[in-house]
């Protein structure tokens, strides 16, 4: 199999997988029925994307593995999502800021992936970018409303931005497989998205009257499978059924 392509697909898809899982946790516990519906919808869209990516990855692997094997049967160190998306739902501010910081990236990323020389990825990108734009509107809108809302909501958004900011830089890191796939015209060169990303993020945060963190210290490791301690617990729930009842159909 084309190992770099396989790794590349997983790197992309794991972000949607883990963020989808986080959003799925909130179902029935959101601050209002409308946000509950929207968060569930985001989770649903992300898992839909995950299925497309992993079905493709399963094809690429050339062996017997299925989308579910890829989703559920890897070990802690084999998930390659960025640290940002695994951060917990501390409160709705963390949830929405995490979503926002990912969505802005996701739209830029998918717009580029539409130009991939790989037709399957191209097709997934075309479908996904519409969803991602909707997510971005939703999350930006809430960041603005709450950032420029009450004093309390402002402070909570500011706190979440301050903490989650340190995870944004990693979005623009590349693994060896990424670099190979960029050369092949398959992958998006994420290093090129950085400027547009921070420009867009800063615009929205400005409108939300949120101060842009000045810290130059960033966290990394997710793309190498070195995660925060939050991921392990997420995985133990996510994998529970597949691990406990191996090899069955559902």
């Amino acid at each position, binding site marked *: 199999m084309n190992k770099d392509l396989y790794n590349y697909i997983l790197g992309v898809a794991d972000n949607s997988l883990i963020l989808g899982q986080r959003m799925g946790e909130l179902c029935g*516990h959101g601050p209002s029925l409308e946000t509950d519906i929207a968060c569930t919808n985001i989770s649903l869209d992300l898992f839909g994307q995950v299925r497309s990516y992993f079905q493709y990855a399963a094809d690429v692997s050339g062996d017997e593995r299925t989308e579910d094997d890829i*989703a559920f049967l890897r070990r802690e160190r084999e998930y390659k999502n960025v640290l940002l998306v695994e951060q917990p739902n501390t409160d*709705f501010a963390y949830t929405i800021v995490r979503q926002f910081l990912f969505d802005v990236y996701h739209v830029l990323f998918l717009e580029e992936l539409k130009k991939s020389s790989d037709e399957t990825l191209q097709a997934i990108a075309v479908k996904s970018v519409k969803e991602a734009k909707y997510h971005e509107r939703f999350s930006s809108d809430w960041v603005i409303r709450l950032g420029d809302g009450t004093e309390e909501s402002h402070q909570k958004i500011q706190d979440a931005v301050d903490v989650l900011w340190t995870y944004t830089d990693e979005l623009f890191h590349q693994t060896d497989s990424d670099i190979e796939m960029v050369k092949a015209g398959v992958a998006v060169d994420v290093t090129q998205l950085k400027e547009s990303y921070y420009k867009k993020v800063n615009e929205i945060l400005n409108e939300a009257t949120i101060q842009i963190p000045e810290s130059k210290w960033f966290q990394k490791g997710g793309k190498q499978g070195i995660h925060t301690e939050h991921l392990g617990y997420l995985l133990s729930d996510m994998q529970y059924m597949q691990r406990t009842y191996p090899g069955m159909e559902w």
Partner: protein
Amino acid sequence: MSEAELKSLEAAFEKKIADDVRIEPKDWMPEKYRKTHIRQISQHAHSEIVGMLPEGNWITRAPSLRRKVALLAKVQDEAGHGLYLYSACETLGISRDELLDQLHTGKAKYSSIFNYPTVTWADMGAIGWLVDGAAIINQVPLMNTSYGPYARAMVRVCKEESFHQRQGFEIMMKLAQGSPEQKEMAQDALNRWWWPSIMMFGPTDAESTHTEQSMKWKLKRKTNDELRQQFIDQTIPQAELIGLTVPDPDLKWNEERGHYDFGPIDWDEFWQVVKGHGPCNKERIGARVNAYEGGKWVRDGAMAHAAKKEKQEVA
């Protein structure tokens, strides 16, 4: 309003009901009609919202991506149903906050079935198959109920619920045809959810109140016992089809009646749960109250922002 005017409004209202003309929010209606509808519609809305919790409990642990997506979609539909139904209820002149307050303080009820825990994945099948199955039997007649907004909401709700019911049945079928562990899991879920589902139709007719009035307003078309019998008659062949056994030793086909006979229902359990002492009553209301209270700053923030924007636009 004079006595004569009132009489005439009442007569016009009664005629509409008799002629199967829908009552609409702007129409005059008797206070009792309004109150009864608020009670029933909100109870229905609350049931959708609380009903998200037992199924939401398995979203993070769904066994495959396909099932996870389907479960998310189902729970999202339930939130949507809650939304239409609260809106329908609001047309009767009560705010969503008041309705939620009634739920949170225990003044309003919701379907007792959601006070049972979802213990295994198979419960996702059993709930879809049995609980949605029972709900549909209760709800289909409401598509023709007299109050317009409720009737219209029910058209959509019923359509989606019969999809959910099939999906639940398919989960059960897959398990029943799967490994011995899976089959055991399916049978166990049926064992646990059967009687609570049977109880969803409420007390026996002898103990049921409001029935006559509700019949007239088409909030009800058949009695609790008739609906229960319909559910049992419909469900037994489905269980047989997938090789599962309903946990009722007294169950058998009665050729003469043309219906299944079934064993006695444990009404003590029913009342324990209705009165708030079921296995999850505290957790369910607790989760809703936590979500609401924890979300106060979010709702306040959004309102404050909207007010700022409005001010800017005016200026």
